[in-house]
């Protein structure tokens, strides 16, 4: 180790002080495990963002999991229909905290081109709370990356010592249906 330049303060065994939040948020925001939730053509963009050309692994988000138990980010990529809605809600509930949701593309955000469809849920935020909305039809992989980068910033604002809005207690019952007491 002699040939490395030494910082003065590290010449002796030392202690670095920081907040627990910072350490946890740093770890959480940089090891996001996305949940493979491709429902339509947005899923194609989500897949291509995983391959070499766009390479989501540059950011450390490449570990897509097919089970909600191992995930902390649900990327809803595509049109949510009425038959899928209860399944999506259930899978979201099966993810362990802390967990986040990205609404990818026009369909997941608002129903998009299928807004008036008889079987379309007009926005996944009617079922689960959404952290980041990504516009586009479909959004390019770069847009997905920007969305996850925005989510990283959001994660770094979190505090498990003093949970604020968006943290565990608040985020459970924030769908419109639940606010009206109709259940979901």
């Amino acid at each position, binding site marked *: 180790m002699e040939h490395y330049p030494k910082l003065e303060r590290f010449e002796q065994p030392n202690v670095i002080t920081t907040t627990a939040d910072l350490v946890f948020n740093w770890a959480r925001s940089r090891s996001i495990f996305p949940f493979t939730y491709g429902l339509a053509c947005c899923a194609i963009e989500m897949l291509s963002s995983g391959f070499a050309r766009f390479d989501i692994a540059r950011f450390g988000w490449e570990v897509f999991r097919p089970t909600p138990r191992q995930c902390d980010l649900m990327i809803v990529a595509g049109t949510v229909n*009425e*038959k899928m*809605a209860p399944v999506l809600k259930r899978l979201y509930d099966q993810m362990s905290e802390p967990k986040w949701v990205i609404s990818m593309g026009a369909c997941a955000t608002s129903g998009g081109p299928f807004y008036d469809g008889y079987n379309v849920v007009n926005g996944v935020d*009617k079922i689960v709370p959404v952290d980041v909305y990504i516009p586009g039809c479909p959004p390019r992989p770069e847009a997905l990356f920007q969305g996850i980068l925005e989510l990283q910033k959001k994660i770094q604002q979190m505090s498990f010592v003093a949970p604020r809005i968006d943290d565990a207690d608040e985020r459970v019952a924030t769908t419109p249906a639940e606010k009206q007491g109709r259940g*979901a």
Partner: protein
Amino acid sequence: MSIAIGAVKLAIDDLGARLGAELGADLADLRVQEPDTLVARVDRRRLRAVAAQLKGLAEIAYDSCNFVAAVDHVTHLETVYHLYSYATNSYIELHVEIDRDNPVCDTICDLYPAADWHEREAWDMMGVRFDGHPDLRRILLKDDWIGHPLRKDYVDLLENHPNV
């Protein structure tokens, strides 16, 4: 067994003439619609007999069901069967008129297993009940959906959208 597609060389007019001779009474308004497609109207009560006969024809058997459609003509409903013959590489369309107020039609999914899910979809979207179908459930919509959305007079109910 391999099937030589189009092995039987038969002009579509000759094919129509042969079908007319074999099933003449059952195929009303038999005509050539496209170079490889014949069209005919079939009575609802004769559908199964006609389908079975078409499937069993020597040499030119219509041995494949490509599609079952349902059409809402407002005055009545109609189911359309697209049958395909590998041997002659040609199609026949069977149009079956059914009552709109009592939309019942015989199933052909025991003759053509491929028709199973098509008939379920016709039930789901148009409300056509297929007599004899072994498992006539909705296929695309939720099990408790109210109404059949591709009917012209369909009215969407709030009950179908619990999350709105």
